[in-house]
């Protein structure tokens, strides 16, 4: 006999409660005036309200009833709800904006965000319970994203303030994306290039290990704002006195301090994981390889490197996620990227602009996480070994 799933039950009940009690969306007559909140029933009218409550009720019933296919019922309802949300919101925008507020705009409110968050948690739990394969997970994610993408494509969400903020500055958005990616990936690559020789030296010379680890941990301790700030004065001085640096665009403000700081922060995860990856290969394996007549180079390329690769990729994953967030902070020293929108928005108290910077930053970090986790699994599977990310946590 199957027991009720308490996790889905609790999540579903909270989702239902918050959906019914919190504001679902807000309507602003224009960019400046404060928005009017709408509860779920007012926003979605009976049709949409009934649809959401019904699908949530299905998950609750399925969570309690001990029927064999219940997790599929839960998964289907949750995915359907996640797919329906943009279209439901689109209906709300059409009803409320319409001819009444030609310059009006709508925004998601707490109820919408809570629903989105809880549904995502229910999706994760449901996928886990059915023992979903990578393909099923991917399918669920793609279905939801396609629905949202379609809603944006046919301009069903044109009245959404976030979309409107984007549409007034598509070029700036693209530039921010490029700057953000360039800084983040640049820092990751430079730190990888620096970490490889550093770790190779550390492996050969044991007495280097402690000071190098001490240095990179110390750098990691310095708060980002402080490190960016500390770089400004010396860089301005150097730039003012060395024309060559000036020609290269290296100044106290801009990409130069950002890049230096990002590389400094990236060194710890990169060096630590590379070091673990290269030193934790079992010694008997290496001896066996040498016994088979491989030379040192062959042992490194054919045994050590493939075995180390999953752990190295895990290091690249952690570094990329960290650098994505720090690049957003680097906008404060004029480095560009999505942080520009965040801090501009905070300065103008324009919350939609803040969202336009913060949400893509989160999306980039999540995308990097997904990509590198998949790559690490793939490389581990190619080895026939299982990935051991637990090795890396301190």
């Amino acid at each position: 006999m199957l027991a009720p799933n308490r996790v889905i039950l609790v999540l579903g009940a909270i989702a239902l409660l918050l959906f019914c009690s919190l504001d679902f969306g807000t309507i602003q007559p224009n960019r400046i005036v404060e928005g009017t909140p709408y509860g779920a029933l007012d926003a979605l009218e009976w049709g949409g309200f009934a649809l959401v409550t019904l699908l949530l009720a299905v998950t609750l019933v399925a969570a309690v009833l001990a029927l064999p296919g219940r997790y599929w019922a839960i998964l289907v309802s949750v995915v359907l709800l996640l797919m329906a949300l943009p279209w439901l919101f689109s209906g709300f925008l059409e009803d409320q904006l319409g001819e009444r507020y030609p310059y009006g705009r709508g925004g998601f409110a707490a109820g919408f965000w809570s629903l989105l968050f809880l549904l995502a948690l229910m999706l994760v739990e449901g996928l886990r319970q059915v023992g979903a394969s990578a393909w099923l997970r991917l399918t669920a994610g793609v279905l939801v994203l396609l629905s949202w993408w379609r809603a944006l494509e046919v301009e069903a969400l044109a009245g959404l303030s976030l979309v409107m903020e984007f549409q007034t500055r598509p070029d700036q958005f693209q530039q921010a994306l490029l700057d953000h990616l360039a800084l983040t990936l640049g820092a990751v690559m430079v730190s990888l290039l620096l970490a490889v020789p550093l770790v190779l030296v550390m492996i050969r010379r044991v007495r280097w290990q402690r000071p190098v680890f001490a240095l990179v941990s110390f750098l990691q301790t310095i708060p980002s704002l402080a490190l960016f700030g500390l770089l400004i004065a010396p860089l301005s001085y150097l730039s003012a006195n060395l024309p060559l640096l000036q020609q290269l665009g290296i100044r106290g403000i801009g990409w130069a301090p950002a890049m230096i700081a990002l590389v400094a922060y990236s060194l710890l995860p990169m060096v630590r994981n590379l070091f673990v990856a290269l030193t934790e290969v079992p010694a008997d394996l290496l001896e066996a390889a040498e016994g088979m007549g491989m030379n040192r180079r062959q042992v490194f390329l054919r045994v050590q490197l493939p075995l180390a690769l999953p752990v190295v990729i895990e290091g690249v994953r952690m570094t990329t996620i960290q650098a994505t967030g720090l690049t957003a902070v680097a906008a404060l020293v004029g480095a560009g990227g999505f942080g520009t929108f965040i801090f501009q928005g905070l300065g103008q108290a324009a919350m939609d602009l803040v969202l336009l910077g913060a949400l893509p930053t989160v999306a980039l970090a999540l995308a990097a996480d997904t990509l590198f986790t998949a790559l690490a699994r793939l490389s581990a599977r190619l080895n026939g070994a299982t990935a051991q990310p637990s090795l890396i946590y301190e």
Partner: protein
Amino acid sequence: MMRHWLTPALWLLVLVAGCLGLPALEPWLQPLVDGRQAVIYPRDSFVTLLLNHLQLVAISAAAATLVALGGGIAVTRPWGRDFLPMASQLASIGQTVPPVAVLALAVPVMGFGDGPTFVALALYGLLPILRNTLAGLQGIDPAVREAATGMGMSSSQVLLRVELPLAGRVILAGIRTSVTINIATAAIGSTIGAQTLGDPVIAGLVNGNTAYVLQGAVLIGLLAVTVDSLFEALEQQWLKRTPGLSG
């Protein structure tokens, strides 16, 4: 014997000296600014900023520790184990979200000031502590737990006398990570109206006053290093008290 407390004490001394003594460095900082600008950040004293910064971090760390520890213990008990996979996934996926984004997203919900900064710090600070609490408690050999139960300990005695001391070092490391991140995030909290040592840096960046930036940056750096060395000393102390439990 108490030698590991020497380093944090020295850093603390430098930090306090910095807060009180920076204004005296005015002549040396003068070349960094135009003649018309003030050299020393005038709006608040560095001591006020330091204390407010510390207060924000300390209260949010205390709240985060309480909730994360409670949550971590709850989901590792038999009655809460259903929620364990979700808690650990939440802890790992949540840490993917950059702290600055959490800070920024707190503003549309809660407005400007110390309040949203505090909530963002506490929420984000939860995650490393939760992750390490789970790792620490799950890393305990089940045989140890069984042995303790076999000795006649009640489940709460097992938790307090066996599990928490064994997991303590890992949990402490989680709190250290959390506090390190939060000192940095609280500094950025200046952009959403929290009063911290980030204020001089932000004001300096806005007005193009490198001297302000330098003063704020040095003090934030010193604060971070002081607190980190304090945790290092705590860890040493922990190791000394529980010599057999270092695994």
